[in-house]
């Protein structure tokens, strides 16, 4: 019903737009230039005012009135049977809701049936009341806007103000969402640290990670939440990934921008960008099923023992995944270096290689650095590949041929495992918060670099 009302409000608003526009024309007898605002601004203002009033009424009255009904029903129940605890009263109320909608209730005594009737009657009043008020406000606001239409009426300025407010609102929503996520991370992190008696150093520098094995009465064992193996694993895989991605990505960008003919470029660049479109889960099983056995077998052939889940396999595949980010972004910044700089260098008798090394790359450096740091953030936060190919055991090792685990893998294990969410969430959120801090610091560093070298050429 409320969805229908919502669309009815939109339809009314559209009608007000048309009415407002034609009324604006008729007010001045067709001499449109006498209007302060173009006719469509008068229409737009009527449309926006009516739609905003209607939708706001729908939201506010719908929720506030509903909450008020629930509270008054609860009060009625408590009045009828004063010996009920609040939780029992809520059970009675939810049973009444179930009965009213023809569902299954835990019991159906006289009180519940009486309440169910109340729910039905008040609910109907609530629904129709909400619809009437919101449609009424829509019409009133639209009529007001249309009544205001006059040659001097500044509909354009007013509608622009409304648009600006709406834009601001959407920006605020985006910012508040971010703040909310960060806040929840912080609160869970504080809970977790509280749970291990604020021995933060044991989390940051401990070397044993087995957070759920020492749980006693919901209390974690501070000696088993050492995250160093996870940080080390993440670091190792990130380094391997960047060792693969940076040279290949950067050199292919240089080739594409300065050496490739237009024809090669026309098909090579989309092909590279296609790599970015492959879902990471596909990379993950490519690493686990194709590359890891290949590495293990070739290792055996030369007498090396390589685990079937290894940091090397996960890192290489992650590097392949990151290549398109680095090559595509670097290619863009290298192309953005003005041709005049290249001409200047050629004009002094420099070769292509000297020009690229000494003029083009330094000029493109800020962009390249931010591309690389973007790649690092991707590598640090990447999950699917490492879940499948890197292993789960929190193994502290410097050998890339062994299985390691990463921060993201452990978060997945904690959340998808069968431990109670309230216990597992603590370490998971804390790891998430740590990851967030690291990527944030890296983004800040990238912006610093970009800022420092910006505007060296125009």
């Amino acid at each position: 019903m409320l969805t229908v009302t919502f669309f009815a409000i939109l339809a009314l608003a559209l009608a007000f737009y048309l009415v407002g526009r034609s009324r604006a024309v008729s007010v001045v007898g067709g001499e449109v230039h006498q209007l302060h605002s173009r006719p469509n601004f008068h229409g737009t203002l009527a449309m926006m005012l009516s739609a905003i009033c209607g939708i706001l009424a729908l939201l506010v009255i719908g929720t506030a009135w509903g909450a008020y009904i629930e509270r008054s029903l609860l009060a009625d129940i408590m009045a009828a049977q004063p010996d009920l605890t609040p939780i029992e009263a809520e059970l009675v109320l939810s049973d009444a809701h179930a009965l009213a909608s023809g569902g299954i209730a835990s019991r159906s005594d006289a009180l519940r049936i009486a309440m169910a009737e109340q729910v039905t009657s008040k609910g109907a009043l609530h629904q129709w009341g909400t619809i009437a008020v919101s449609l009424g406000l829509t019409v009133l606001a639209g009529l007001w806007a249309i009544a205001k239409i006059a040659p001097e009426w500044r509909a354009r300025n007013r509608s622009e103000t409304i648009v600006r407010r709406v834009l601001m609102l959407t920006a605020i929503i985006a910012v508040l969402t971010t703040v909310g996520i960060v806040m929840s991370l912080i609160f869970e992190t504080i809970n977790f640290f509280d749970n291990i008696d604020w021995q933060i150093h044991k989390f940051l520098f401990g070397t044993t990670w087995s957070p759920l094995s020492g749980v006693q009465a919901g209390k974690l064992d501070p000696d088993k939440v050492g995250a160093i193996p996870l940080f080390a694993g993440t670091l190792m895989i990130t380094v391997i990934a960047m060792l693969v991605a940076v040279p290949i990505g950067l050199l292919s960008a240089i080739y594409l921008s300065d050496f490739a003919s237009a024809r090669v470029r026309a098909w090579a660049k989309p092909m590279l960008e296609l790599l970015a479109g492959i879902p990471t889960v596909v990379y993950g099983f490519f690493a686990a099923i194709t590359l890891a056995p290949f590495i293990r077998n070739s290792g055996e052939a030369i007498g090396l023992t390589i685990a079937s889940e290894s940091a090397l396999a996960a890192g290489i595949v992650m590097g392949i995944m990151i290549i398109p980010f680095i090559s595509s972004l670097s290619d863009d910044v290298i192309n953005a270096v003005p041709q005049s700089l290249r001409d200047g260098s050629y004009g002094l008798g420099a070769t292509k290689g000297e020009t690229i090394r000494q003029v083009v790359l330094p000029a493109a450096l800020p962009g390249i650095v931010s591309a690389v740091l973007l790649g690092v953030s991707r590598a640090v936060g990447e999950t699917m590949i490492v879940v499948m190919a890197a292993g789960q055991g929190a193994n502290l090792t410097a050998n890339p041929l062994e299985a390691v685990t990463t921060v993201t893998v452990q978060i997945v294990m904690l959340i998808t495992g069968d431990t109670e969410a309230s216990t597992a969430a603590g370490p998971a959120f804390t790891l998430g918060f740590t990851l967030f801090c690291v990527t944030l610091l890296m983004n800040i560093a990238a912006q610093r670099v970009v800022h420092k070298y910006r505007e060296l050429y125009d």
Partner: protein
Amino acid sequence: MSKNIKISAKNVDVFYGDTHAIKGVDVEIEDKSVTAFIGPSGCGKSTFLRCINRMNDTIDICRVTGDILLEGEDIYAKSIDPVQLRARVGMVFQKPNPFPKSIYDNVAYGPTIHGLAKNKAELDEIVEQSLRRAAIWDEVKDRLHQPGTGLSGGQQQRLCIGRAIATAPEVLLMDEPCSALDPIATAQVEELIDELRASYTVVIVTHSMQQAARVSQKTAFFHLGNVVEYGDTDKIFTNPEDSRTESYITGRIG
């Protein structure tokens, strides 16, 4: 009036794809003098200038036929390396284009890649000499290690001239070097060009006829890809032979 001929172009044609940009141009450029190319926009004077150090090689669709001889040697011959050619024939561009490096490194760039300096002291000497000859040394000697892009437009252009001089070229090509500069900076650059004449062969493309008259000894008038008239600057500006030259100089075409 017998002077050494530094550059001799014979029957040069340039094509951009299907467009015939330069049509059978013959020009002989004298050593240690300033030669100006004038003409309306799109007449091919910049294109011809870029042929002299093979800058057009960097444009895929550009094709050059005919002979351009630098001291009697065909610069389009197979044996000529365009990179070495450009070290002998330097170029200054329309828009100042300092590299995003320090003032010092901008000037040291050419000498370093060509190995002109044996050590740091020699390099310092080359940088100072070049900046002095470009008449900018006094303005930048205290800030050699600040970015060249922080200079004003006129200073940047003189820096670019200094950068071109530092590679010790024999010929200096200038493609409208003053078009982005204000009158004071223009006057400084013109004065500089006049001084450079003693050591280099200068070829300058300009839109300003006053500039051509002020700085050059020889002038070539380009029109629609042809050299209409080529001769002593004094004669071109006072007593042109071709009616089109006269029309252009007096402002009736172009």
